[in-house]
Structures are given as structure tokens and as C-alpha cells.
């Protein structure tokens, strides 16, 4: 069985599956249940200076599919609303009882060194393995000059990171907000400030839905609503991109990353690990199904690694990074075309109408034996994949590379590019 142990910024855990700083990690009770279920680590819900915040009633919004599966999730909850002392006591107790698990503590404060350093120094004696600086919350706390209000200003990210690093011997993970124009600016700032790792993404600023009777955003608090933090499966692609950008950026390459954003399965986790993450953090999936989902995350990842011959996480960690390139580095001469397996086809016609109405008119209908026969017109097919995505049958429509015999050719070198790089002239 594959070895799932991982280390990130010096923090060890028996598996890479951590619970993210969020409602599931607010109390000892929940965290003990999580560790019993098998989670490798937790990031304790964000601590702040006393007096504790006060939360509102009705806190979550959701984007559900037609069968009520959770696609996206949003919250307007603030940081922990329990006294600092209570949290610190519980953190110490948990760490003592579960020494092999990673216990990282999230914190947030106003923009003063005294506040940040003071909190860090209070947390260190609990025995926690590390700190995570919450620069991300896009609701509530930012209106008080915290959370994303700091995370959106690279200079402030750098400054706070440095303050905390100076105040503690603990590893410091900087949690980044996606609510920015370029995540590299804040990642680079964190690195300059001395961050041992970054974690991302925090939640995306959002309105989950509008209640058309109340004519107000959800979650609705007495007839009003506010923007909140969006997470769940829908944000995974956003998170993967931001993780990849940091992993392949020359200035941040090698900076440990804890991946967050829509992770609910071992496969999601493997994708983040393939982009260089050293651990992954989960919240929405656990809030949807409970802590037991970690069983298959462990089992599935391990089985997949065994199948692939990966003995440890390091064997595949970051393997996908070199293949994330700029558009300009793609091979313009690569050609792929769709192929429809007529035996697997159930005759729904979705590939045809999707291609016909919205793409390249490359799937024609022939009358078959008792059912319609759908056929790709190779001359029209541009290999866009739309048909394969809308087909309800797994592996019915597959993409096949065409042998063009032509070399790798990028757009900067392409003959149709008016600004192309001129090939060096042959010596005369």
C-alpha cells in the first residue's frame, strides 16, 4: 500500500487530507470526530482577539443541481465566535491527544504588529504545528480591515507575514484570497515576507442566489443579504489554476502549497497534488456528507497510487506542473477528432444538436438499424470536445489524435501570425 505520509513547511501528517479552517474545525468536539474518522490534519477555525465576534442567523447559501447535489456553497459566517482562551485550551488538548496529526491554527487580526504577533505568541504554547494567516475572508471581517482587506494588498500581505515570522518559531502558512486580479502578486509578497508555505484558495466573493419571493440575496438575514464566500465543487477549476500559476511561476516555484477549493474526492486531491501541493484542505464536502468521506479519499488515493506505481506522494507531486504552459506554447499542429462508438450510443442526439446549434456542424445523423446513427464529419470536426462532454454515456465519444506528420509549432512561430518570429535566415 502506498505511503500517504506528507510534510509541508515542516508539518507532518499521516495523510495529505486536512480539514480547512471553517465551521467543521471550530471546536475540540468536531476535530476529535474528524481525527477518529481518519483526517490527517486540521486548520483550526480562525482565532481573533477577544472579545469574540458575533455571528448572524442564517449563514449559508447553496447552488444545487437539478437533483439537489451541492455544486457550490457560500457562507457569511465570521471567524470563531468563542473566547480565545477556550479555543487555546482545546487546541492544546487536541494536540496532546493526537500527536501524529497536523494541527495548524488559523488567525486573523487588525493591521498592527502588536495584534498579529500577540496572537501568534498566544497560540505557540498550545503545541500547534503551525499557523495559517487568514488573509482571505471576503465578507464581514474585511469590512473591519481584516481578511481579504489585507489579502488584496500585497504590501500588507508581506508586512503581516514578516511580523508573524518574527514573533514565532512556528511554520507560517499564508492563506491567499482569489478575489484579486493576479494571485502571483500576493503569493510573491507572502514569500518575500518569509512565508513557509501558501494555502489557496480562500472563498470567492459571491451571492449564492436571489430569493425571488423575498427579493433578497441568500442566505437571507431578516429580509437582507450580503455577499459571502463561495466554495465547493464549482470553485475547484479556479483553485487549480491559481495553484498552477504559483507552482510554475519562477519567483514562487518550490514554495510549498496547501491546496484548497472544491476538493471532495481522492481524485480531486490527486489533481492538486499533481500541481505541486503538499497537502489538501477540505470543507464543503465534509459539510455535505460528514467526516466519513475521508475513508474513500485515503483508500482511493492509495489504490490509484498502487495502480500507477507511485510509492509516496513525492513520486507524483508536481508531475503535472511542467505541462501547464502558456497558450503560446501549445502545438498548433496537434489535431484531435471525435469518434462516436455506435454500440455504446443510446441515441439521445445531444452530441448532434450541441454541435449543430453551437459549434461546427460536424455530427450528422444517418438512419441506422432501429436507431439513429451519429457520425463525425472529420473535415468539419475541430476536436473541440463539446460532444464528448455533453454525451451522457461514459467513453461513448472519445477523442483521437490524428497523425499529421507535422512538427511542434507554436503560435509565435505560426505562418499565419503576422507578428511571428522570423526563422533565422540560412547563412549565405
Amino acid at each position, binding site marked *: 500500500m502506498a505511503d500517504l505520509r506528507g510534510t509541508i513547511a515542516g508539518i507532518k501528517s499521516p495523510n495529505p487530507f486536512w480539514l480547512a479552517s471553517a465551521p467543521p474545525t471550530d471546536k475540540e468536539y468536531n476535530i476529535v470526530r474528524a481525527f477518529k474518522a481518519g483526517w490527517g490534519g486540521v486548520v483550526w477555525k480562525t482565532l481573533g482577539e477577544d472579545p469574540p465576534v458575533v455571528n448572524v442567523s442564517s449563514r449559508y447559501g447553496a447552488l444545487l443541481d437539478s437533483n439537489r447535489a451541492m455544486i457550490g456553497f457560500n457562507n457569511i459566517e465570521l471567524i470563531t465566535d468563542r473566547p480565545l482562551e477556550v479555543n487555546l485550551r482545546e487546541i492544546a488538548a487536541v494536540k496532546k491527544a493526537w500527536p501524529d496529526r497536523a494541527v495548524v491554527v488559523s488567525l486573523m487580526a487588525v493591521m498592527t504588529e502588536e495584534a498579529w504577533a500577540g496572537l501568534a505568541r498566544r497560540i505557540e504554547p498550545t503545541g500547534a504545528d503551525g499557523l495559517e494567516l487568514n488573509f482571505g475572508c471576503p465578507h464581514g471581517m474585511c469590512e473591519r480591515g481584516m481578511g481579504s482587506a489585507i489579502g488584496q494588498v500585497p504590501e500588507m500581505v508581506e508586512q503581516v507575514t514578516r511580523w508573524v515570522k518574527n514573533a514565532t518559531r512556528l511554520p507560517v502558512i499564508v492563506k491567499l484570497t482569489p478575489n484579486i486580479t493576479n494571485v502571483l502578486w500576493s503569493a510573491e509578497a507572502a514569500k518575500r515576507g518569509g512565508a513557509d508555505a501558501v494555502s489557496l484558495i480562500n472563498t470567492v466573493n459571491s451571492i449564492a442566489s436571489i430569493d425571488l419571493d423575498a427579493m433578497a440575496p441568500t442566505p437571507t438575514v431578516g429580509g437582507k443579504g450580503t455577499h459571502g464566500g463561495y466554495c465547493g465543487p464549482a470553485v475547484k477549476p479556479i483553485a487549480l489554476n491559481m495553484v498552477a500559476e504559483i507552482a510554475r511561476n519562477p519567483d514562487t516555484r518550490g514554495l510549498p502549497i496547501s491546496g484548497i477549493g472544491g476538493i471532495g474526492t481522492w481524485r480531486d486531491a490527486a489533481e492538486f497534488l499533481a500541481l505541486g501541493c503538499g497537502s489538501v484542505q477540505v470543507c464543503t464536502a465534509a459539510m455535505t456528507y460528514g467526516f466519513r468521506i475521508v475513508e474513500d479519499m485515503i483508500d482511493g488515493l492509495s489504490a490509484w497510487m498502487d495502480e500507477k506505481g507511485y510509492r509516496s506522494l513525492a513520486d507524483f507531486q508536481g508531475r503535472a506542473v511542467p505541462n501547464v504552459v502558456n497558450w503560446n506554447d501549445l502545438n498548433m499542429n496537434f489535431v484531435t477528432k471525435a469518434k462516436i462508438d455506435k454500440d455504446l450510443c443510446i*441515441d439521445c*442526439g445531444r452530441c448532434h444538436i450541441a454541435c449543430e446549434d453551437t459549434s461546427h456542424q460536424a455530427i450528422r445523423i444517418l438512419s441506422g438499424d432501429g436507431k439513429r446513427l451519429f457520425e463525425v464529419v472529420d473535415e468539419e470536426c475541430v476536436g473541440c470536445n463539446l460532444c464528448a462532454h455533453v454525451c451522457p454515456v461514459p467513453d461513448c465519444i472519445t477523442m483521437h489524435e490524428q497523425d499529421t506528420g507535422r512538427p511542434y509549432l507554436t503560435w509565435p512561430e505560426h505562418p499565419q501570425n503576422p507578428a511571428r518570429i522570423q526563422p533565422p535566415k540560412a547563412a549565405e
Partner: protein
Amino acid sequence: MSGVNGAAHSNQLSLDRDLVSPFTALQAMAESSRCLYCYEAACVTACPTAIDIPGFIRKIGTGNVKGAARTILDANIMGGTCARACPTEVLCEQACVRNKAEAEPVLIGGLQRYATDVLFKAGVQPFTRQAPTGKHVAVVGGGPAGLACAHRLALLGHEVAVYEARAKAGGLNEYGLAAYKMVDDFAQRELDFILSLGGITVKTGVALGRDVTLAQLRQDFDAVFLGIGLAGINTLGVAGEDLAGVADAVDVIAALRQRAAPPVSLTGRRVVVIGGGNTAVDAAIQSLCAGAAEVTMAYRRGMAEMGATGHEQDLARTQGVVLRTWLAPREILGGGGAVSGIVLERMAMNAGRLVGTGETVTIPCDVVLKAVGQKLAPGGLDGLALAGGRIQVDETLATSLPGVYAGGDCIKSGEDLTVQSVADGKAAAFAIDAYLKA
């Protein structure tokens, strides 16, 4: 999903409980999400009324349930009845691509019932009549064909008078469908809904050839539609048919639907039903519901040739009906006016022909129900050309008499189903409209 009479009940059908429990909102959501929204969907082609099935299911999924009902009713004004009574297993659901994908179709009938029930419960009239044309049309027969025709004609702005021979309009929806498919007073609620559009008057107790003549109707109206069904009943032509324990299955079914005493007592009796169609199955199962001690269905050909669908055959078996095949009635035995048994001859196929083998079996019984088909009642059809024992029509459903159209069971169109009659009635209405505007 919904099972026979719901999971909470025993599997024994009864006359006042739904054969298939209506969907809850949760079931409707889950089932609607299974629809793949096929392009030029096979289910639509399989529906005689061509309901936009993917369209209405998508509307259920988006919460536009009344819109879904409107989509259904616009194509099939008796979408509520069809949702309950259609043999979907040989129509839309048989064509569903989910059969190929996972051997379980989207339960279209259940979704159709869900949507139409919501609209009926809300008491919404989703249609508006076009401007009055000043034209008057007589519709003879207040069954599915006649009412569908009347509704479409009224929508198109014509005034319609429906003449119905029985005490209530609704036709086989009211008198013919099995009680467990049409529980409570749905047929009459659907009738009320159709009439609430306006422009339709119904005169009951008026029979063609007895109370009104075709010639008179042609004179008084701008056009006539005949949806008179098959009011004549085939006989067995065997000795003993006049015994007191012998009855027509359709009369028994009609009585049970009307909560009236059936023409023969069924309680505790041994019943033999002759026939292999859906009427035979309905009569057999409902006889058990009504207290019959044992029920045997005897059909002269094999299972595969039965008019009843495989689903109906299975239903009969699970309800305890004994299905016997290759048996044709030869004599009903009795004494003192009562039935004591039936003699049947074993049949076989010989060179493509059904022939008797000479071997007979006798089934002791107290009641014989005849379900060997209906035929056109001869009265009142003066001057109409017939074909194959039905009223002859062209592709527009026009009869041999100008301005006279026909549809439903009295013509030979497709299956003898409510949904086919509705399709005929709708098509005839459009043809009549074109005729009146020509």
C-alpha cells in the same frame, strides 16, 4: 420509486386506490433529473399525441410545473387520464433512451401525472379561445375523441354541441378504464376542466339514430364529428350464452366504475373471462377486487398474441389471475339458469391458421365474462361508407359525407387507446377548422 399501490399497501389492488402512487415532489425532482433532454426524442415520436416530453420534463425540473402541464395539455387535453391509463411500457417509456443506458426508462407517465395534478389542483385554466368564428359543430360521442375534438374546436373559436348517449360524458375514461387507474372522480374533474374553457355544451342521454339523426345534425350544424366508439359487443356464439351468470366484461367494468352493482354477482364466485385484451385483464383483476373467489382468463391464442401488454399480463398474474391460452369457448354449461362451467376447445396453429384440436377442457365456474371485442353499433350511420367494420375516413379523418368527420375507436386509426382517440379528435378538429374556413 412508486410501486403497485404504493409501498405502504399490500400488493393486492383495490377499486379505490391508485395502481401507481402519484409522485411526491421529491420523486418528481429525482425522476425529472434523469431525463436526458434528447434531441428529436424517440418518446415524442412514440406518443400518438406527440407531447413534447423532454420539454415538459425540463419544465418540472426548473420548477415551472404549471408550464409543464400546459405543454402536456396543449398536445393532449386528456394528458391527465393518459398519465394514468396509457400503456407507457409500449409507448413513450418503451422508446426512452434510458432503456438502453440502464434498462429503466424515465417514468414519463408518473411525471405527466405530477404536472397535470399540480395544474388541476391549482384550478388554473391555461388556455384562451380564439375570436368567435360564428361556426357551430356537432360532436357525437362525449368520449376521449369527441371531447378532444370539441376542446380544440372551441379553442379555435367555434361553438360546439356534444351529444352523449350515456348519463355522463367521458366515454371509456368514465366507464371503461380500470378503477385502480382512474381513482376518485378524475374523469369528471377532467371533463369539468375541458368544459371550463367555454364554447362547449354537453347534452347527455342523446343517442345517434335514436334521439337524433345524422341528417338532422348535418342540417343544423356547419360540421359534424363522430366519436361514437364501438357500442356493439361481440358475442361468443356458443350455447349457454344466455345463462344468468354470463355478462359482457365492459358492463361489469362500467358498473364497478360507477360504484353500482355489476350485472352478475362476483362475490365469492369463480369467474372465467374470455379474451386476451386489456379489457379482459381489467375485467379479470377487477373481479378479484370485487370479491371473486378465483378468476381465470382464457384466450384462444398464445401469450405473445394477446392484446394485453406484457405489463398488463404480469399485473394480472401478480394479482392472482390464472392465464390460460390456446383455449376457445365452445359451450357454457348450466342448469336452472345458472352457470356451472365452461367447455373450451384446445386450439393450435396449423399452417398459419388457428384451428381446433378437438380436445376440450371444462373449467367449473359460476360466472363467464365476455371480452372478445366490440364493434360498431349499426344505428344512425345512414349514408356513411364503412370499411372493415368501422367508419371509413381519409387521411384528414373526413368521412364519405361532406362536413362529417370521425375519430377514435369507431375508425381504424391506431391502437384502441385513450391517447389515440385524443390524437384523432385533435387532428379532426384541425381538419374541420380548415373545412369551415375554406
